[in-house]
């Protein structure tokens, strides 16, 4: 079977029944999708398959034959982050980072579908994703900002936040 991951096509044989997660991580070496619960309960392994978010730990790799798969490595580059990545940075939406790639890919797909900054709708879209740091408030703020099309100057993000905190503004 052929899996096109972030624009690069890989031939993989004899792994149709393996999870897409294992094939991505172990066979192809793309480790952005995280192996959290390995049973669909956490969302850390979510990738985009032809633009649709899928739990890669539940998807037989054979079903992804011929599809375009996007992982967090394919969302943007360090020099040019995707809008959802910029929003996560600006809103401090990542703590330990384990859930972040799955969260961002699900959020990216939500915004691609025309999702708005409505918090209830965002919670529905990300309802299967667990943040073990419980940083949901900032994650939802970040997705809402990206859905609105906010722009971010990441060179001042940290400075501005620290300044606010230092002057007693707090969070």
């Amino acid at each position: 079977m052929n899996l096109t991951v972030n624009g690069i096509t890989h031939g993989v044989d004899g792994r149709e029944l393996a999870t897409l997660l294992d094939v991505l991580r172990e066979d192809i070496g793309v480790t952005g999708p995280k192996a959290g619960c390995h049973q669909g309960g956490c969302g850390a392994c979510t990738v985009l398959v032809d633009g649709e978010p899928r739990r890669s730990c539940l998807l037989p790799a054979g079903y992804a034959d011929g599809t375009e798969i996007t992982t967090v490595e394919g969302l943007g580059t360090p020099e040019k982050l995707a809008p959802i990545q910029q929003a996560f940075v600006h809103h401090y939406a990542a703590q330990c980072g384990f859930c972040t790639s799955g969260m961002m890919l699900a959020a990216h797909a939500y915004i691609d579908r025309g999702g708005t900054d409505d918090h209830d709708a965002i919670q529905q879209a990300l309802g299967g994703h667990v943040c073990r740091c419980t940083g949901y408030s900032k994650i939802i703020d970040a997705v809402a900002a990206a859905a609105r099309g906010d722009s971010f100057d990441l060179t001042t993000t940290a400075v501005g936040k620290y300044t606010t905190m230092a002057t007693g503004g707090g969070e």
Partner: protein
Amino acid sequence: MAAASVVTDAATEVLMPGSEDEAIAAFGDGAEVVVVGGGTIVLPDLTYRRRRARKALMLGGAGLAGIETQGSRVTIGTMTPVQELVDMPAPLGPCAANVADLEIRSQGTVGGNLCAREGYEAPRGDLQSAFLALGASARSAANGDVTEEPLEDFLPKRRERLLLGVSFDEPAAGAFAGLDRPHTHDYTALAVSGAKGTDGTLRLAATGTGSWGVRLPSAEAAAEDPVAAGEAALEDVSPHDDALASAWYRTKVLPVLVRRVLDELKESA
């Protein structure tokens, strides 16, 4: 480096039929065949080695997905994603919306949900009550023989046959009531579906009161009085303890859900 967590494909004969006929032939008598619909239930079982697959029948390319309506008759292919039911009228639409989350509903299939074996923590067939309330029939195959029968007859032998699709007549009215789930990953702990046919026939069914969904004939007979019907429903079930809820809790809540469904049906009439 080989994956550590999955039974290697070398130990499993992977069958990927390209048509319904090929799927029926590949299934054969079903012996030692693990049917893979969307994979959302089977893959974790294989990953955690709760099951071993000597033959894995992957139905993704068999052309068994889709919803067709001819007149008032609706036919849903076994590989249709659960998400495609979400906008359908009650009880099916709200019942489907109560399954997992968007990503899993988009991958999990109608057939996989209906045919799932009892879980280690809970019954898994969230959609069973809705299809039972609709009086659905199941089209299935084994040993090359294709038959169609009432879903309630099919469910007890769902592990022995290959489900190809389900059909039902659009109801005049429908309703669904279920327990809230603490997390989207949880299966339905208890839910009740109701539907009134265009001929006035009322059907009630429950998911979460046993190994698979069941009709509630005693509640149906008492339907004129929703409170009495709720109590009567207890005659039709054998609630159990599992990780999601105790038998005691299910016994207390089932009458409430039956009453809600009947009240909703009355309002929509």
